[in-house]
């Protein structure tokens, strides 16, 4: 898995983040003692009074992928993106960004990367209290060495994008929580980063603005195709935005999968709990429950069902059928079948379980 896709924007392999005294040494000892079992290692560390905030995290984010991390409060989400952006030094493991070993990079190289390539929106915004909104947003540009005029112009552009025009000269303390969050988003957008870390970027917003920004966000993503790591608590948001979702518990990544996989095939009760209130039929597509063609079946005529249909829509169009129904891909070729009863069962299990 680690050295899989050659075009991975981010590749983490066996990343540990341990807080406490002499974390490196203690972790090495514990790994020696317990072998590969991350759970046992964490147990040994916590007995010694250390906190293993991230445990043996291994995953990749493909170029242009929107990768969402979910998990309960304190499960290590913020910590993991701090490791990747090297705001803190990972205790063990390796992190590659575009194939470059970040943990071995010099300070100078890191500064370059941050100036040109990486962007981050902070959970608590991290706005500079002594700078106006415009100065905050333009700060990364200033670090790049841009002149005052182009800085200002670019800052106004992104401030408009997040809907804060007219507040350019306000100070952060004069803004509401949601407005501050948008300043944070605008600041990280200013330099147009290739790789973008967002730590609960929409959490302080009202539902209306949130939806608006999510749509704006998807639009940006559709055209610019950044590689994004996005942290959220909101499963609906995750399902709406994500290409893939990783679920964390107590520092461990327990499952990584597409939204449909997470909703339909949770690996355990913890993951299932996340998607409990989700109307499965609206999120899972037919493609994820159909049986691929074996080649033996023969169907005549045309099928109404498409792999990209949601389960709800599919069920509505074949409630009266008792036979397996063929499923077509986008070009109209039959690629699989689905039995209506299997369709109903898929919805059923995920709801009662």
């Amino acid at each position, binding site marked *: 898995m680690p050295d899989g896709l050659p075009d991975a924007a981010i590749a983490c392999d066996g990343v540990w983040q341990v807080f406490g005294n002499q974390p490196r040494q203690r972790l090495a000892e514990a790994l020696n003692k317990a072998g590969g079992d991350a759970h046992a290692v964490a147990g040994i560390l916590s007995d010694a009074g250390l906190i293993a905030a991230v445990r043996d995290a291994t995953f990749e984010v493909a170029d242009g992928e929107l990768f969402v991390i979910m998990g309960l409060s304190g499960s290590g989400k913020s910590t993991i993106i*701090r490791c990747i952006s090297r705001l803190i030094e990972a205790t063990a493991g390796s992190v590659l960004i575009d194939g470059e070993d970040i943990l071995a990079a010099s300070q100078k190289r890191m500064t370059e990367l*941050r100036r040109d390539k990486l962007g981050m929106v902070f959970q608590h915004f*991290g706005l*500079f209290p002594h700078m106006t909104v415009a100065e905050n947003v333009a700060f990364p540009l200033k*670090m790049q060495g841009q002149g005052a005029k182009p800085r200002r112009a670019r800052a106004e552009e992104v401030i408009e994008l997040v809907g804060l025009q007219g507040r350019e000269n306000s100070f952060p303390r004069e803004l509401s929580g949601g407005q501050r969050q948008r300043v944070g988003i605008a600041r990280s957008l200013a330099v147009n980063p290739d790789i973008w870390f967002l730590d609960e970027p929409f959490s302080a917003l009202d539902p209306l603005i949130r939806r608006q920004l999510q749509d704006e966000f998807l639009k940006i993503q559709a055209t610019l195709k950044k590689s994004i790591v996005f942290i959220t608590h909101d499963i609906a948001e995750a399902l709406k935005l994500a290409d893939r979702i990783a679920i964390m518990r107590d520092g461990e990544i327990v499952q990584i999968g597409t939204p449909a996989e997470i909703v339909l095939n949770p690996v355990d009760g913890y993951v299932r709990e996340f998607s409990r209130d989700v109307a499965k039929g609206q999120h899972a597509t037919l493609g994820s429950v159909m049986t691929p063609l074996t080649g033996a079946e023969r169907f005549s005529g045309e099928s109404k069902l498409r792999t990209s249909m949601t389960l709800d829509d599919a069920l509505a169009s074949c409630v009266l059928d008792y036979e397996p129904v063929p499923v077509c891909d986008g070009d109209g070729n039959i690629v699989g079948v689905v039995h209506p009863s299997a369709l109903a069962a898929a919805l059923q299990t995920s709801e009662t379980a």
Partner: protein
Amino acid sequence: MKSTLTGLSPGARAALIALTVGALCLAFGPRIPWLLEWPSSLTVPATDWIGAGLTWFIEGIKPAARVLSAALAYPMGWANVLFVSTPWPLMIGVVMATGWHLGGWSMAALGLAGLSFVLASGYWVESMNTLALVAVSVPLALIAGLAIGILANEVPSMKRAVQVVLDVMQTVPTFAYLTPLLLLFGFGPVVGLIASAIYAAPPMARNVILGLERVEPEIKEAAIMSGGARWQQLFLVEIPTAATQIMVGVNQCLMAALSMVIIAAVIGGFEDIGWEVLLTMRKAQFGQALLAGLVIVVFAIVIDRMSGALATERRRHDRRVTWAILGLTMLVTLVTWSWLPEAGQISLLAPVADGVDAGLSEFTKANGAALDSVKNGAMFYLLLPLRIGLDEAVLPFTWGFQWTANMSLIFFALSLVIGIAFSFSGRLTAGAMVVVFAGMIETGIANLPWPFVLAGAGALGWVAGGRRLAAFAMGALALILLSGLWDRSMLSLYLSGAAVFACAVVGGLLGLSAAVSPMAWRVLRPVCDMLQTIPLFVFLIPVLMFFQIGEFSAFLAICAYAIVPMIRYTRHGLVTTPPELLEAAVASGATPWQIMWEVRAPYAAPTILLGLNQTILYAFAMLVIAALIGTTGLGQSIYLALSEADVGLGIAAGAAMAILALVADRLVQGFAEERRAALGL
């Protein structure tokens, strides 16, 4: 012994240990003299050694120091010319414009009123001399403080060391700095300048460290992620974010520099306002001393309020007004140039001072008996017994009878009965403490046997912070014992202890009343603000006026200075109980007084202890200044060393003082910490 002790609370064990050691000393003291008096054959001539070492060191760096002092003479000369020869209307205009810029009309008015008073007092030139010194020393202190703060922030391994040094510097008495500086730089204003820069740098450094520490991690991270180089992160983000705290540092730095410049006047050589106070005080011209003292207070208030405005959120005031004020005063100066009186010749308030002087002598003549009886009463019935014990202080001449050995026995038996009664009702610690205190009063603090002091400090340290603190307290005191400064230290301990006790009782009550009644706080608050702004030195004037030189005057001066933190912290602790706790108490049906004792007081305990801690440090700081008007003990030694340029004695006594203050500081902080932990804070 051990097995019976293990079932007890640490407090009770500590009290019992102290009690046992004390009792043993009392019982065997008469037969084993070294129990009561540390044998002088076992002391090392620390004073001489330190003196020799320091003299050698000073001789080594003296050439460099003299070069520095010569170099500093230039900016000092310029500042002096600038301040003294600027025409006074223009100076007033500059101060008003600064006031306007910092805080609007009220500050401008404060500046005008303050400087007008200075002008009318006739001490304009002396004041400008003082200001010139402050103006040169403060930038030095600010730069040094900032550099130290940044160093501690950037090099984490240095941080602890820096903080220890800052702690020690805060506890070393101001006069103790002066002696070595005197030898290094020679007589003259440069010593005052450097002493004030050294004294004023730590508050700046402390606040820089604190401010940088408190910058939210996410703000720092945002600066990193923006791709700032380290210096860009520091100067463009972290320091501006910490600006408010750093401005608090600037304010404290200014006040410390002013205070020290005035104290440094004792070495003379410069016609400044501190010297004026000292001179008039020596000549017993109290009216003039009071006037000069008031000039210092006015300066302190103007500087404090204006620089304090830096640290608070402020509106931007119209620049045009600033320039208008400057232009206008410039114009006035030019127009009136030819007939403007010299600032030195104005002394509108001299008659008032003379009047006060005359009135005062009238008053003391008329009420001398009453004042004396107050003084003697406090001396004979409170201070003296505390110092040398009932057994020596109770004499026929004052108390009307002679304390006898039998009385001692009865006294002890009584305390023992009370103590036992306490322990039977389950309060063993309190019982043991009663007996310990009875023993201390009977013996007198200055006469306490050294094993008892060591054991007591160790026991307190053990309860407050465990073994390490106990070892620190005993080790530090043992150093004093070895140095041969023990007797003097105990005298200092007695006077500051008495003052701290008085401050704790009176200040605690005042703080309580301020917490209960907003009206009381409205009265007390400006008084506290005032007392806190007044430079140490000025406290001596009023007590001298009424009670002459002597221990009682020193006691009063210490109390006046040291009581403020006790009042403030007590009130603050009591009024900041979380509202949900109070609501819960009210909902449980507690009366206001029950809430005060059951909820507010325990919750406030750590804060009040911190106030006590500040009071102790203030008391030690003032103790040395009070040596000017007659105290015995370390303060006197330090002052003596200054006048005889005896570095060894000055530094050794200063170190002993610092040790006492540090031990007290750590003990009280330990208790505060323990209370906080008990409350889960």
